[in-house]
């Protein structure tokens, strides 16, 4: 899948969990999911589930733990999707 398309879907999926609306408006691949978007750390598991549903994949714990920024998520998903 096209990296830009993955990026667009990641942004849409992280949006509802984000508490910092300003950071959402200025989102980029460098945006930190916890620090910048202020997603509650407990919700990372929900974000991973959302990725799995969206892209019909299974994300293992190590891959999930590698996701700190939006770019990390896109990288992880691009790798999984080949």
């Amino acid at each position, binding site marked *: 899948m096209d990296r830009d398309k993955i990026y667009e879907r990641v942004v849409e999926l992280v*949006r*509802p*969990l*984000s*508490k910092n609306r300003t950071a959402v408006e200025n989102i980029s691949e460098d945006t930190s999911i916890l620090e910048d978007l202020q997603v*509650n750390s*407990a*919700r*990372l*598991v*929900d974000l991973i*589930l959302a990725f799995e549903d969206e892209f019909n994949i299974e994300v293992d714990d190590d891959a999930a733990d590698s996701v700190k920024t939006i770019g990390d998520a896109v990288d992880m998903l691009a790798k999984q999707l080949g």
Partner: protein
Amino acid sequence: MTRKRVAVTGMGVVSPIGNTLDEFEAALQAGRSGIRKFEALAELNFKCQVGGIPQSIDSIATAYFDEEERMAMNNCMTYACIAAMDAWTDAGLELPERPASEVLWDTGAVVGSGAGGVETLGSRVVPLTDAGQVKRLGSMCVEQIMSSNLSAKIGGLFGLGNQVTSNSSACATGAEAIYMAAERIRNGQAERMLAGGAEGVSRYIWSAFDAMRVLARKFNDRPSEASRPMSASAAGFVPGAGAGVLMLEELESARERGARVYAELLGGAVNSGGHRNGGSMTAPNSSGVQRCITAALTDSGIDGSQIDAISGHLTGTFADPVEVANWAQALGRPPEDFPLITAPKSMFGHALGAAGAIETVATILMLRGGYVHPSCNCEDLHPEVEPYADSVAHELKELPDMQTVIKSGFGFGDVNCALVFRNSSN
């Protein structure tokens, strides 16, 4: 040590007859029923296919909570949090920014439910766990099924730093929460407390009551007539849902900040009948009920002759005539001297853990407005209630000089609560 006095300075309600105080009071005064028939219950072979379910909640929730907050709440939590937000603003307080505002160390919450996590258990935890899909439960189930789900969520909404807890005493929960929170203020341990109860809509809760044959089964074609407290033709309660939350506040500090005071909570009591002398898991020990009422009077520094009106627990079951007799005995008020009595459940059903709180909101609105709202569907009074017929509010009763009103909540487990409120102009 002199105990502090407790004022009610704000109220919020989510109910089958309205989700704002104005809507709720208009329906109360008109005797308008919020009971409807639900085909989904018929399809599931419920014998009781009517219930009281709050309407138009999604639009309120969308206005009050962000998407993540809405995703993480079951309907019981949503009701509780809407009522808490409304109580807060009704008290004239500004809503704190979430999550950036400071912790309010002098403000807490006691808000409970009878079975607040059951819908989440039934709809998500059990099916996904049994299907071997534990991972798919995600992060949002624990906060919905923990017994403190309501108070925990409310504590975060407002940044509460005092005691934040959820009580549970079946159908006495909402009233008991108000008593517990008031005690915290009376003892000088908190300045403000959000207090109340909520109950969600769940077929997994209502089915268990349906199986017990304690729900109304004979009025599926006449929903507005189904909830019949004190009626000879009552044959079970109508399940309901919603939330009621009060802002309780130390009276002097409330006055200092210029808060409107709806009423003073003079006092109250909680106890249990111990499943003895006729009491059981599902029936009240009359001695316990009477002791609770007299203890509430003593705690309030009044006697039974000073009670102007009773908002009963009165569910539409065999227990109603017993309750009326207990009121007469405990207040020392025989039928010819019995105060006005009304049953709010006749309009919106039995909201279980929320009942005592929603009905306390109704009680305080009556006290403030100088009236007793109608007790519907009891034109055919139960023979044992018939001697008290002149005291039953079949229609709206103006009572402009009403000073003191008592509200009760009695629950499975043989537990009791009584609360006494006084007109705040005293």
